[in-house]
């Protein structure tokens, strides 16, 4: 049974690509936690930046010497922090770009994800401005080159009464006032980014703002190791009467200056504007018909708030019930709803044991009502000729299961495995199934973010609604599969069959 759209080719490819990096476990795979890694790096930059700002002299004459002193006399702390600060900025830029590509590949740039996408795109230029501005504060030859090149590039816009380049034309033009502007760029813009990050995460429930502990340790340890192995050193002090001969160049953060020199300011500005316009307009890209959003059935909603708690996109709120005084009713924000069905799996009214002929739950997906799943399950169990009758619940976004369908295996694709109310496992077993296998995506790999996690917790009995503890644990299992993990799925099925043979469990 399948009533849901499968993942697009790009999404499937990306998920398969990402799966390959689960070498140890998804918790060690950075591709699974790019947003959280970027967030951690932001705070590393803030923490190291606060210390550096406190100890360096932010004046034309004092900046260079104070940073040099810090790097030489206090290399074991201040110098180390300086290098960590720079490498964290490099990592931040790279991780942010990969994060953007990943979200695009997973289709999270329109519909319910529009707000997060747009705010994320706006954060990119802020990141670039803040990063480039950091080089100016250390008034060495690299800072001088970047400041001059930035001024030349910015002067393309006819916005400034006096050309910015005149501020970096000669040593006499450089003033402490100009340095205050540099400080503002490097501190004020990250403050703007902080506001932007708040907007960026606003529509995400349970946003992962810290990577898993193993990855956190690797990341912080890696930054320290890099700072120790290749400490960042200043160039010679800035001298505006001289063009720097050779620069140990940061191509990750400062690639724009050589690009402007190799082409023209106009070409690069047009490229930047075109890229930004493309990214900002991407949510308008035509898509296959957007699936219908979750629908609340007022007479069956008890106001328990479990759908509110489980929605990954904060798309559900509670409003006063129109018919039952003192009761609350779930309300779905259509713009924010991802049509993932996690709310259906969370709703206690979704239990198939209810005696009504047509199962109507409190909140449901119109394109794949929970009653269809119960009907399909019943009819398959009645008609399956096999000696063993194994029911497999899986996810339309995950590993393909159709090939398994046969005399003794019935597969059911849900929009997301989180759509499955856990009571369906018990229901299937009572209705004639020999065993039930629940196929979830790998940890942190759910297209809808939380489907795998909620399903795992519901079946383990730690999150309501739970699978009752009285259900025979030898007759059901859960397996985590990547999109190309057909062999793992078949092995799990074989293990379940073997267990049934061994225990002699039969319907």
């Amino acid at each position, binding site marked *: 049974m399948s009533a849901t759209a499968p993942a697009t080719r790009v999404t499937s490819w990306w998920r398969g690509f990402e799966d390959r*990096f689960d*070498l*140890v*476990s998804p918790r*060690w795979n*950075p591709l699974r936690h790019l947003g959280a890694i970027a967030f951690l790096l932001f705070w590393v930059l803030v923490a190291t930046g606060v210390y550096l700002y406190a100890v360096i002299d932010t004046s034309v004459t004092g900046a260079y010497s104070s940073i040099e002193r810090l790097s030489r006399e206090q290399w074991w702390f201040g110098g180390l922090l300086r290098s960590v600060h*720079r*490498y964290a900025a*490099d*990592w931040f830029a*790279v991780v942010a770009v990969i994060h953007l590509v990943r979200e695009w590949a997973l289709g999270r740039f329109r519909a319910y994800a529009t707000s997060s996408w747009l705010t994320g795109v706006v954060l990119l230029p802020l990141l670039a401005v803040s990063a480039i501005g950091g080089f100016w504060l250390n008034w060495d030859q690299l800072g001088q*080159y970047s400041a001059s090149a930035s001024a*030349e590039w910015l*002067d393309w816009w006819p916005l400034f*009464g*006096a*050309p910015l*380049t*005149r501020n970096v*034309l*000669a040593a006499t033009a450089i003033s402490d006032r100009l340095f205050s502007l540099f400080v503002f760029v490097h501190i004020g813009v990250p403050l703007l980014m902080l506001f932007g990050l708040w907007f960026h995460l606003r529509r995400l429930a349970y946003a992962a703002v810290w990577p898993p502990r193993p990855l956190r340790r*690797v990341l912080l340890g*890696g930054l320290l*190791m*890099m700072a120790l*192995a*290749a400490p*960042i050193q200043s160039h010679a002090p800035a001298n*505006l*009467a*001289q*063009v*720097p*001969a*050779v*620069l*140990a*160049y*940061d*191509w*990750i*953060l400062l690639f724009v200056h*050589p690009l402007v*020199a190799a082409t023209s300011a106009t070409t690069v500005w047009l490229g930047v504007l075109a890229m930004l316009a493309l990214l900002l307009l991407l949510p308008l890209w035509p898509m296959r018909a957007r699936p219908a959003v979750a629908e609340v059935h007022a007479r069956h909603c008890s106001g328990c708030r479990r759908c509110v708690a489980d929605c990954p996109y904060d798309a559900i709120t509670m409003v006063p019930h129109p018919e039952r005084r003192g009761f609350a009713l779930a309300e779905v924000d259509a713009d924010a709803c991802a049509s993932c069905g996690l709310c259906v799996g969370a709703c206690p009214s979704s239990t198939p044991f209810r005696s009504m002929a047509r199962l109507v739950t409190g909140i449901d997906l119109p394109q794949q009502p929970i009653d269809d799943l119960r009907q399909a399950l019943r009819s398959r169990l009645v008609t399956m000729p096999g000696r063993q009758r194994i029911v497999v619940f899986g996810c339309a976004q995950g590993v393909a299961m159709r090939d398994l369908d046969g005399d003794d295996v019935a597969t059911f694709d849900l929009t997301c495995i989180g759509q499955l109310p856990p009571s369906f496992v018990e229901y299937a077993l009572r209705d004639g199934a020999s065993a039930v296998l629940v196929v979830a995506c790998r940890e942190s790999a759910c297209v809808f973010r939380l489907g795998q996690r909620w399903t795992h917790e519901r079946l383990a009995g730690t999150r309501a609604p739970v699978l009752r503890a009285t259900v025979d644990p030898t007759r059901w299992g859960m397996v985590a599969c990547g999109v190309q993990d057909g062999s793992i799925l078949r092995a799990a099925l074989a293990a379940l069959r073997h267990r049934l043979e061994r225990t002699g469990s039969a319907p």
Partner: protein
Amino acid sequence: MTIHPLRWLSQAVLYVAFAAAIALFSQWPPHRPLAADQALLKVSFLHHGQRLQDCVEQSPEELAKLPPNMRAPTRCPRERAPVTIEVDLDGRPLFRDTAAPAGLSRDGAASVYRSMPVAAGTHRVQVRLRDTARTQGFDYSHDERVVFAPLQVRVVDFSAEQGGITLK
């Protein structure tokens, strides 16, 4: 579940490769903004051209037509002339530009910025600047033999206080 040591090793290799790539491109390859045998000549000024029209005395009849608070004895049109600059290097034209005055009323300063690489060595630099409404000839000129050391930056500027065109 036991994880094969090879998987741990592969994971570690990937981490190290990523960190090494970042460390590498954070400082390498070196960037040479200018060839070692070249210098840079920058032409930059921020200068108000002369007013296009002189101030004129207003007749009593003209003053009478104006509101009492606006009866200034002289009227000075604000619009200024564009500023034209020409730079020759060793007798050959290197740079020509005419900068319009800024502002909606064309009464602001005209500005020019251009950075040009020149071969290191001794060169004759001739600069001419016009900031009046005249169409022929120039109001200021500068002619100097200049030694450009490799990677040296020389700036052509204009400063009325310093007598006009400067080359530093």
